[in-house]
C-alpha cells in the first residue's frame, strides 16, 4: 500500500510545516504578552541599578559597557520577538506599546554603553529606566486585569 502511506506522510509533513509556520508567526496570547512585558520591566530594573552605578561613579567602565551591551541586546531581541508575533485581537494595542517600550529600553542601554563613564548620562539613563519600568508595570497590570 505505497500510495496511502505516501499520502499519510505528505499530510503529516504538511501539518508539521503549517504548525511550524504558525509558530514562527507567533500567536501571541495576552498571557504570553504579559510575560514579555514582565521581562521588559525586569530589564529596566537591572538598567536602573547599572545606571545608578555609572551616575555615582561606583562601577567599572568595562563592566557597565559589557552589561549594557548584553542587556540592550536582550531588550532588542524582546522587541523583535514581540513585533514578529501576531497578537490576539484584544491585545494589539498593548503589543504595540510593549514594542515601543522595548525599543526605548534598547536605546537607553545603547546610550549607557556609549557613555559608560559619564555620570550625567548615568543619571539621565537611570531616570529613563525608572520611567520605562513604571510604564511596563502599568501595562503588565492592565494585561492582568482583563482575562
Amino acid at each position, binding site marked *: 500500500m505505497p500510495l496511502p502511506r505516501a499520502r499519510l506522510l505528505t499530510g503529516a509533513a504538511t501539518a508539521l510545516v503549517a504548525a511550524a509556520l504558525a509558530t514562527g508567526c507567533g500567536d501571541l496570547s495576552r498571557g504570553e504578552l504579559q510575560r514579555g512585558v514582565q521581562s521588559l520591566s525586569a530589564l529596566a530594573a537591572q538598567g536602573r541599578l547599572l545606571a545608578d552605578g555609572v551616575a555615582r561613579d561606583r562601577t*567599572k567602565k568595562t563592566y557597565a559597557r559589557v552589561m549594557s551591551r548584553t542587556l540592550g541586546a536582550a531588550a532588542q531581541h524582546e522587541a523583535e520577538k514581540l513585533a514578529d508575533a501576531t497578537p490576539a485581537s484584544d491585545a494589539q494595542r498593548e503589543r504595540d506599546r510593549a514594542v515601543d517600550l522595548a525599543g526605548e529600553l534598547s536605546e537607553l542601554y545603547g546610550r549607557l554603553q556609549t557613555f559608560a563613564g559619564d555620570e550625567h548620562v548615568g543619571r539621565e539613563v537611570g531616570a529613563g529606566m525608572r520611567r520605562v519600568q513604571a510604564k511596563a508595570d502599568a501595562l503588565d497590570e492592565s494585561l492582568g486585569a482583563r482575562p
Partner: protein
Amino acid sequence: MKTIGKIALGIIAAIGGFLDIGDLVFNTQAGATFRFDLLWAVVLGTIGIAVYAEMCGRVAAVSGRPVFDVIRMRLGFSTGLVALVASTFVNLLTVGAELGGLALILELLFDTTYSMFVILAFFLLIVIVAGLPFGGLERLFGYGGLLLFVFVATAIHQEPDWTAVGNGFIPSIKWDPTYLYFVVGVFSAALMPYEVHFYSSGAIEERWTKRNLKENRLNAMFGYGIGGILACALIVVSGQLFHPLGVDPTDLGTVALPAQDAFGETGLLLALGGMLFAIGGATIDSSFAGAYNVAQFLGWEWGRYRGPRKAPRFTIAWLLFLALGVVLAESGINPVDITEYSVVFSVVALPFTYLPLILIARDRTFMGEHANGRLASVLGWGYFAVIIVLAIAAIPLLLATNGGGG
C-alpha cells in the same frame, strides 16, 4: 597550623567546586524570585554534599579506591558503564558552562570578545595546571575564591530583616512548579557529583590513609560549610536587592551587582575576582573529575602526580574534556543556559554514583571498623531517598517551568 593547611583540599572543593557557576546562577535567581524562602534548600544540599564527600573521602582513605573504581567493582562493567556515560555527559556540560562563565567574567573585566576569552581561558588553564603542583592549584583557586566573602559583607551591609532571613531556613514546600524547580536547582547545584569525584580522587592524589580520616571529616564539614555560607549570602543579597525591584538575573554579570551597590567599584572587583577564581577552580575540578572517572573505570594509569608521561591516556582525556568544553562554550548557547541543564541533569545522574558508594561505605568486610556508623547510615540513606525524589521530579519540572521561566 599544619591541620589548617591540610583543610585546603576541602576548601578548594568547596569554593572552586561547591560555589561554581551553577550556585552563582541558581542561588541568585532563587533570591530574586522567592526572596529568602529557599535558604533551607541550600542547607539541605550543603549537608548532603558533606555526607557524600565524607563517605567518598573515607572510602578512598581506607581502601585506596576512588569513586569510579568502586562503582565498577560494585555494579559491574555494564551497569557501571551507564553511570560513567551519565556522569561524563553531565561533566561535559559542566566544563562547557564553567569555561563559558570564565570567558564572560573576563569579558566584563576587559571588554574584549567572548570567543577570544574562551580560547584564552583554555590555554591559561593548561599553563596553570602544567605549572603548579596539586597543592598549588588548591591554594590559587581555593584562596582566590575567598574573595566571594564580599557577598557575606554585602548581606550584612544591606541590613536585611534578619527575622525574615531566619524564617527562610525553615523548610517549606509550596506546590508551585517554579518554586519546586528552584528547590531542585538549589539543592542540585550544592550537590554536583563532580565535586565529590574530584575530592575523592584528590584524596588519593595526596596519598591519604586511615590517618587522614579526621582531616577528611573536617574538610567535609568546614570546606562545604564555607561553601554553604557563601551560597546563603548569594540568596540573601539577591533577595534583598533584586526581589523588591523585580530584577530577573539571567546574566552572570548581574550576580556581582549587589556587591557594587554596597561597596562601589571595589565591591564589584572583589565579586568578579572571586567569581573568576571560583569558576576557574570549578573548570579544573570538573575537567579533572571527567578524566578521573574515565581513567578509573577503564583501569588506566591516572593522577596528576604521575605526570603526562606516566599517565598519558589520563592526560589526553583531561585535555579532551577541556577541548570539548571549548566547543560547547563556543556553540553560541548562553553559558547560563548550559549551567541550568548541567545542574538539573546532575541530580538525575547522581543516584548511579551515590548508591554504590553508600553500599561500599557500609560494608564492614570492606571498610572494617571505618564502615558507616548509625548516624552516617541514617544520613546516607535519608539523602539517597531525597536524591531519588528530586531525580524523578527534575526533568518534568524543567519542562513544565521552561527552565524556571514560568
